[in-house]
């Protein structure tokens, strides 16, 4: 082993190289790596958050769909109910109308009947009178016998 000034040369070189690494290599590399690490961590966190949000949104959409279905079912059942009601109402109305018409018709018939009866009475009265006239061959005083005639027609 032969020691000479190479030792000092290497020592100085070593010092300079370490200084250079400390100044221009190590911090920059470390910073870059840390930055990338942070970026990757952020990215992963964002991805996770995104997935979470997606799952939430899916959950929400399912809920919304279910809610919509429920509402639709309610509306349909309400409509059905309303429809039944309307049909019922219409039936009732129709029944009422029918009975009203029937009543009217009946009363009209009654009136007609009464009228016809009246006519018949009148005609019977006049026929009776005419018959009596024929029988008596003599004119019956209309005014004098009106009361009698009235009674007869009343009895008819």
């Amino acid at each position, binding site marked *: 082993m032969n020691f*000479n000034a190479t030792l000092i040369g290497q020592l100085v070189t*070593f010092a300079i190289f370490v200084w250079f690494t400390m100044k*221009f290599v190590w911090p920059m590399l470390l910073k870059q790596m840390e930055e990338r690490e942070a970026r990757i961590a952020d990215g992963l966190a964002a991805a996770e958050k995104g997935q979470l949000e997606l799952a939430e949104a899916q959950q929400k959409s399912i809920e919304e769909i279910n809610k919509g279905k429920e509402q639709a079912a309610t509306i349909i059942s309400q409509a059905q109910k309303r429809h039944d009601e309307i049909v019922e109402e219409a039936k009732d109305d129709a029944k009422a109308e029918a009975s009203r018409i029937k009543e009217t018709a009946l009363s009209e018939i009654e009136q007609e009947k009464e009228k016809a009866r009246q006519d018949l009475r009148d005609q019977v009265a006049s026929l009776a009178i005419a018959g009596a006239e024929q029988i008596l061959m003599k004119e019956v005083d209309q005014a004098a016998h009106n009361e009698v005639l009235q009674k007869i027609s009343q009895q008819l």
Partner: protein
Amino acid sequence: MASGTELTSNSYLQHHLQNLVFGKLPAGYERIDAEGHSHVLEHAEWTLAHTSQEAMDMGFWSLNVDTLGWSIFLGAMFLFFFHRVAKRHTEGAPTGFGNLVEMIVEFVNKNVNDIMSVKNPLIGPLALTIFVWVTLMNTMDIVPVDLLPLIAQFIAGDSHLHFKVVPTTDPNITFGMSIGVFILIIYYSVKMKGIGGFIGELTLQPFSSKNLAVQIVLIPANFLLEFIGLLAKPVSLALRLFGNLYAGELIFLLIATLLGAALPFFIGTFLGGALQFIWAVFHILIVLLQAFVFMMLTIVYLAMAHEHH
């Protein structure tokens, strides 16, 4: 490969284990070249050493041009490529080389954070530099042992050129780094615990007593233990790396010498190549492991320097 006239295993090994040294030879120095001619220098001269003896004679103030050069080159490559990745402004996922860089940084950062209880902005860059730089320097061991020296000799036009390409097989390089770590250990020990705390740590444990007189008697024993322990840190750090890589390099060289030179050309080349490959595969493990161990121990030592006992 280099000594032109006679190529022996011994000279091959010695040649490969000698650094390319640049230093000053004093006036009156007698240089002997490979052909055996000698000439005496008239003036002191800054030059490259031709032999191990010349390199020795240059004394302390000389430089191992090859290992230090490769060390600086590899370190600069590390800084260049890592800085380029650090500068980019990509928002999205990293690709290709960026991935590799981030993987290494994350690995180092994780180790630092696991071991250090205190936050210190120096430790991370220090550990990263050590890990990547030492890995790159060790990796030069995988390059076939003669390839780069031959290229260097060809470029220099000198077939005797010494050229060691694995910086971590040079104790100067490993000690240069471990002494750097040692300075930081002492700096942070003093900074975190104060001078008194640091000295106390060296002298008042592991043996301590409630009795003041006994405690004073125990101080030398404590100091001896702790001081050796402290010094052992950089020495073991440097020697471990150096020893592993030096041994690995030596085995490459031995395979190349013994099998390449002792057996007939074809068989020697084939068998030697196969063994080199197998050892290189094993050596990949050592390359990474030793870089990792150097980094981890550095972090552990500095973490210990930050902690109060």
